[in-house]
Structures are given as structure tokens and as C-alpha cells.
């Protein structure tokens, strides 16, 4: 019972630290491209967030399997980055085909951003972090789920900020991306308040 409690506690801590303390976008500065690109409307931001989270889960699981079964036994850890990129590209392409067939509205909404996930550093970063930290399969999924949720949350939060900004009277030189970057700085700084939430 006590052991189970420790595991549950560890899962919760890993999850929360992935969402808040080590937020992909706001603390690690990974995946800035969609963070600025698709956050003009909350609906697309949520769609993109969910899409990235879904891709992350699939990629992280596959990457873990490939790493443990193929790379580590053959002492080929140096191929990690390359094989992860391969997996990401294939998964995104697969997801695109499937979405187009079964959920055309989502496919239309994500449009050009879906292929962008291929080159999204967040999607590559998470499997690499998982490997670096030596997470087992369960922890990999937990941490990845937290990271994905954190990414989606950051996008939705920030899209709210930008929707509000679009209605405000902003000096001409700060309209558009420059203002968005300032806002991103403030949101990011506020997230640094979570640093030290859990004692390491």
C-alpha cells in the first residue's frame, strides 16, 4: 500500500512538473513556432495543442520501443536523434492521412500546421529528454502526457492573451508578432514562478 502510494505520488509529481515547472513552451522554449503561429484564435490553438499532444504520445512510445529494443542492445545510442526524426516524420504523415480521411474538419483547421509538427522541436525534444533521463515505459508515457498537456495549455492560454490583445489599442510598432513576443515573455516569466515547486 505504501509502495503504491509512492508510485502514485511519483506519477503526480512527474505529471505536474511536466505541465507547470518544465512547461515545454514557457520554460524550455521548445515549439515556439506553433506557439506564435497558431495562437491567434483559441479554436486553432486548442486543435494544434491536442494534435501535438497526440503526436507526442505516439512518437514517445514508439521512440522508447525502438530505443530499448533496437538501439541500446546494439550500442547504437548515437542513432537516437536520427531514428526519432524518422519516427516523427512517419507518424505525422500517417496522422495526416488518417485525419484527412476520418476528421476532415480538423484536417482543414490544422491545414499547413500539421506538417509543421514534423519539424517541431518539441516533438523531438521530449523523446530525447525521456531517453536522457532513463524513464521506463510507464514514466515515459506519464511525462509525455504531461508535456503534451502543458503544451496545449500554453497554446490555449496564450491564444486568450492574443485574442484580448487584438481588441486592445496597441502602439503601431508593437502590433503583430513583436507585441506577441512581449506578451510571451510576460507569460513565460509568470511560469518561472513554478520553479522550485517540487524539491529536486
Amino acid at each position, binding site marked *: 500500500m505504501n509502495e503504491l502510494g509512492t508510485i502514485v505520488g511519483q506519477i503526480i509529481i512527474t505529471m505536474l512538473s511536466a505541465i507547470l515547472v518544465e512547461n515545454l513552451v514557457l520554460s524550455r522554449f521548445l515549439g515556439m513556432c506553433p506557439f506564435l503561429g497558431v495562437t491567434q484564435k483559441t479554436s486553432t490553438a486548442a486543435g494544434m495543442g491536442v494534435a501535438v499532444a497526440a503526436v507526442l504520445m505516439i512518437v514517445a512510445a514508439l521512440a522508447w520501443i525502438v530505443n530499448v529494443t533496437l538501439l541500446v542492445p*546494439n550500442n*547504437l545510442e548515437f542513432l537516437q536523434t536520427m531514428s526519432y526524426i524518422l519516427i516523427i516524420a*512517419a507518424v505525422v504523415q*500517417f496522422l495526416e492521412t488518417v485525419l484527412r*480521411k476520418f476528421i476532415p474538419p480538423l484536417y482543414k483547421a490544422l491545414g499547413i500546421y500539421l506538417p509543421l509538427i514534423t519539424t517541431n522541436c518539441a516533438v523531438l525534444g521530449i523523446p530525447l529528454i525521456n531517453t536522457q533521463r532513463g524513464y521506463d515505459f510507464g514514466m515515459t508515457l506519464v511525462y509525455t502526457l504531461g508535456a503534451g498537456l502543458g503544451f496545449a495549455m500554453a497554446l490555449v492560454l496564450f491564444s486568450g492573451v492574443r485574442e484580448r490583445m487584438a481588441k486592445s489599442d496597441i502602439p503601431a510598432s508593437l502590433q503583430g508578432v513583436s507585441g506577441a513576443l512581449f506578451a510571451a515573455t510576460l507569460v513565460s516569466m509568470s511560469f518561472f514562478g513554478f520553479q522550485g515547486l517540487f524539491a529536486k
Partner: protein
Amino acid sequence: MNNIFLHFAIPALILGGLGLVLGLILAYSAKAFAVKVDERIKFVRSVLPGANCGACGQAGCEAFAEAAVEGKVKPSGCPVGGESVAKNVAAILGVELGDSVSTVARVACGGTIAVSRLKYSYDGIKSCAAAGALHNGPKACAFGCLGFGDCVSACPFDAIVIENGVARIVEEKCRSCEACVAACPKKLISMVPRGKNFVVACKSTQKGPATKKACDVGCIGCSKCVKVCPHDAITVVNNLARIDPALCQNCGECVKVCPTDAIHEIGGVLRVESKAV
């Protein structure tokens, strides 16, 4: 020797095998989950310029092709491609290009250099937008065509010429893309149904004497045309006559009574011009 071979072969095999397996899955899924796309979209896309400039108002050439196939935009909707692209698109979609063009652009100003006066001499950038920003332009009439040809450069079909300082639409070439309507800073160009050839070539809402002072062929709002029109197609609002193209029957009575020649027939000879000769 054997060791070195394995040293290179195993990583290559593993990465290559991984790529092969993923590639096979993708190839299978592309077939299994293929979505039927209207073939014509691909064909339309292939005849478009492919610049993805967005001048048509769509998100890009792909979006234009989709909208064209769905009938949401006209085949002539691509301003960059011009007439040749419009023809190709119309041919692919099996629609008559002429059929979709039922309207034609009209310039509502007849104030040529000979009949209108200037209030200052303009030496700036040769653009209607620039000239118009300076005290409504050099013309004494604040409503008149400035003749620098912003519409000419906007027209993808070479259907507009500047003649004697006023834009004129070459009706055979006009594909009613409305690019000129948006380009004119004086909002002089509008779309009217083809075949309604009697127009009030004036936009001046000033009172009669003021209009007359600036231009010989301005509409002075005398309402003679209103009385003579047998079809009640003409109204005068704000000292400016307007012909309702839906009611106009092309009888030409209004032209006969118009004292200033503001109303004239497209393609007909202006009385002012014939007097001048």
C-alpha cells in the same frame, strides 16, 4: 575485418530497416485511407500561376482551385493569370467564360482634359491614390477621374485605357473581375449589366453651378432626364442623376435632353466632341 564491416552494417541495416518498415506502413495507409479528391481541382491548380499571392482573395492557388471547382469563384477570378488562365480554367470546368461575365465595369466620369479644369498643377507621383490625397487631386472637380491609371495597372486583362485624361473601359476585354473597382480612389468605377449603354458619366454631388464651373460635362442635377424617361429609370439624388440599369430600356431619350452631355451612350459620339471638331 569482419568487425569493421559489422560496425558499419548493423547501424545501416537497423536505420534502413526502420525506414523501410515505416515507409511500407505509410504506403499502405496512403492507399487504404485515400480520399477521393475532385480531379478537376488538380487540373485547375496546374494551370494557375502558382505564386500563391492571394490576390484573388483565396488563401492560395490551391484554395482558389477548390473554390473554382465548387463554383464559389469565377474562372476569371485569378488577376495574375489574366485572360489565358481564365480561359484554361473555364475549359477545365466546362463553363463558358462569356456566360459568367454578365457585367461590365463603367467609369462614371467624362471630364476629359478638354472639358474640365484644373485647380493646381500636379507634379508628384503618377498615381491616382497619391494625387487624390493632395486636396482631392489637381482637378477642379473633386469627384473626377484623375487619369493616372491606377485602374489600368490593376486591370489584369488590359481592358482599361486612359484617353484624354479619363479612364475608359474596353468592354470587349472586360472580364468583370472588379480589380479596378477596388483600385479607383475616387470610387468612380462600378459594375453594371452588359448592354445597358446609357450612363451618367459623372459622380459630382455638388450643386449645378459649382459642377458647371469645374467641368463642362458634369451632371448639374437639372432633372430633365427624369421627366423625359418613359420607364422611370432615372432618379436625381444630391444633384446627381442615376440610371437604374434594371429599368433602363436603352431608348436614349435622356441623352437627347441632357444639357451638359453628362448622360451619353457608350460608344456613341459626345456632342461636346463633335462641337469641338
